[in-house]
């Protein structure tokens, strides 16, 4: 990575480094922001992680952090005791999260130029912790996709190989961290949309338990599946971000009223050898799945031995119903999406078709002209699955299959604290490779989908570079409901053992 951004290289700095550097006077928040903005100018024309930059909000936030340092000194206080936990940390938000002062497009033409009039709770909490919003990140339209190619505003490219996808749907959020443009970003995960791009870009990516983080202010996709979570270069960065965004929210009745533990401390325990005795289950039947690349399988098997060497009790387990996950998900996800997207009617916001003959024509043309092909496909699929005569055969069966998957996890967590699977069947694929093959694209979420259906938590942590492709491979560490502490502790111990270098050399 070039050193053209001057003294500060964000690709080597964690959130904790930045806060400490600012508190100790080593650099200012303004200088950290400059480094982020310089890096974006350097690489984003090629990577296209961002749909929108927010320099005014960023300068205001960085200025507030620097002013807080000055006033701490004036009051004779140590800025370490007064700064927010993410003070001065440059961050990106997936562009399906509303923040006043930005546009929120969800990667969709129908929301082009949509002005946010309220704040997404999770995003607001991240910024209230002192983080500096640098911009809004690219995504597949309405988060429908696994490559970011479905964005109405052009694809994001993988910083490891610009001919390849970064995954999706939170591809811009993943790429922005991978390329060293920001230090932390937020994404949303309905069937793998945080973990899959995390794996493909060599970043750490966490999907919290359903309800752990408020969904208020996000453009809804699948309301029983969606969850917001962070990307970082390190497990600790993800823990710090989760600490900031987790907890109940009166604006989301499904947010969980569970106490928020000290996630950062859980990561600290890992450093002190904290996985001794941890019961780690390798999901063996999911390693026999057709389409799993040999280079991915061998790194997951190596990961299991790493846990053994660290003193964990490693055993084998099966999730026999997981094979029905994809089918259940491609009924439930589109069904919920078709219902959520009914709000795009050309009346209250969004694109409106010209010269409508009547109100029905206005609805029908605004939607058909405003939605991209994958959105139309999912809305059609969901509407069909919910329509009279097919509801029981599809939606009803899918909801029952969901119960089987929950039972599998529940049985597995009686014997194990965490489960290991690949995050994705392969490393990053080429742009265009799967764009005419919706089913092939859907298969890239095979390993991540069951966790959304059950609603528990999982992290993707880099396991190394594939021996055939030389591209990052993600290990998925799955935990029980509200077991983020355990998952983060396991991920941190693994991270320390494998010493993955998360910095791609951007080529092309």
């Amino acid at each position, binding site marked *: 990575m070039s050193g053209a951004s001057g003294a500060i290289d964000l690709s080597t700095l964690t959130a904790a480094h930045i806060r400490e550097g600012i508190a100790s006077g080593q650099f200012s928040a303004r200088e950290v922001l400059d480094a982020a903005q310089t890096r974006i100018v350097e690489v984003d024309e090629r990577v296209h992680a961002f749909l929108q930059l927010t320099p005014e909000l960023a300068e205001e936030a960085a200025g507030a952090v620097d002013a807080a340092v000055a006033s701490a000194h004036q009051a004779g206080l140590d800025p370490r005791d007064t700064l927010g936990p993410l003070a001065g940390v440059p961050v990106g938000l997936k562009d399906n999260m509303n923040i006043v002062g930005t546009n929120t497009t969800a990667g969709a033409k129908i929301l082009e130029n949509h*002005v946010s*009039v*309220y704040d997404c709770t999770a995003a607001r909490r991240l910024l209230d912790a002192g983080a500096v919003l640098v911009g809004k990140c690219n995504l597949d339209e309405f988060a429908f996709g696994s490559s970011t190619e479905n964005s109405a505003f052009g694809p994001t490219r993988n910083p490891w190989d610009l001919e390849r996808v970064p995954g999706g749907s939170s591809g811009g959020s993943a790429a922005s961290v991978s390329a060293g443009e920001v230090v932390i970003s937020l994404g949303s995960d309905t069937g793998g949309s945080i973990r899959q791009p995390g794996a493909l870009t060599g970043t750490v990516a966490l999907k919290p338990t359903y*309800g752990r983080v408020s969904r208020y202010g996000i453009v809804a996709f699948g309301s*029983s*599946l969606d969850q917001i979570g962070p990307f970082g270069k390190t497990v600790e960065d993800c823990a710090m971000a989760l600490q900031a965004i987790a907890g109940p929210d*009166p604006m989301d*009745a*499904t947010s*969980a009223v569970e106490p928020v533990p000290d996630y950062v401390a859980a990561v600290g325990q890992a450093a002190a050898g904290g996985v001794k005795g941890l019961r780690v289950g390798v999901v063996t039947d999911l390693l026999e799945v057709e389409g799993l690349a040999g280079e991915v399988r061998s790194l997951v098997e190596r990961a299991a031995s790493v846990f053994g060497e660290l003193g964990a009790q490693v055993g084998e387990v099966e999730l026999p119903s997981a094979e*029905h996950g*994809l*089918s259940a998900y*491609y*009924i439930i996800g589109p069904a919920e999406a078709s219902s959520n997207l*009914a709000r795009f009617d*050309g*009346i*209250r*916001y*969004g*694109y*409106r078709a010209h010269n*409508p*003959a*009547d*109100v*029905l*024509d*206005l*609805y*029908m043309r605004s*939607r*058909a*002209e405003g*939605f991209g092909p994958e959105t*139309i*496909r999912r*809305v*059609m*699929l969901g*509407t*069909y699955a919910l*329509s009279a005569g097919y509801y029981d055969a*599809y939606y009803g*069966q899918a*909801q*029952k*299959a*969901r*119960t*089987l998957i*929950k039972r599998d996890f529940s049985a597995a967590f009686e014997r194990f604290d965490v489960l290991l699977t690949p995050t994705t069947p392969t490393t990053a694929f080429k742009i265009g490779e799967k764009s005419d093959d*919706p*089913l092939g694209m859907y298969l890239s979420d095979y390993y991540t989908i069951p966790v959304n*259906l*059950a*609603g*528990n938590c999982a992290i993707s942590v880099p396991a190394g570079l594939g021996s055939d492709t030389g591209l990052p491979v993600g290990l998925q560490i799955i935990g029980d*409901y509200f077991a983020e502490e355990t998952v983060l502790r396991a991920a941190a111990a693994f991270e320390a053992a494998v010493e993955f270098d998360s910095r791609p050399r951007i080529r092309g």
Partner: protein
Amino acid sequence: MAISEEQVRHVALLARLALSDEQVAHIGEDLNSILGHIDTIQQLDLDGVEPTAHPLDVVNVTRADEVRPGLSREDALKNAPEADNGAFVIPQIVGPGGDEA
């Protein structure tokens, strides 16, 4: 269970999507290919299995019935394609000169 062109048109109407003939044909193919894969779910014997609508056993949440500030009218209309006099503008749907829909 193959889906016919007529069914595609019916679903498009339910979904309020004005699709072209070309789109109807293309989406019909896509849906059949996807349904061909997910149809395996219909073969599962799931009699007696309780459906899961929601991952957590949540209960209804209520709050005190108090007046609180909400979105201002100005903000609510900020993104409207057409607004007038503090209201959203839509094509006429009732009264003389309105259509039959």
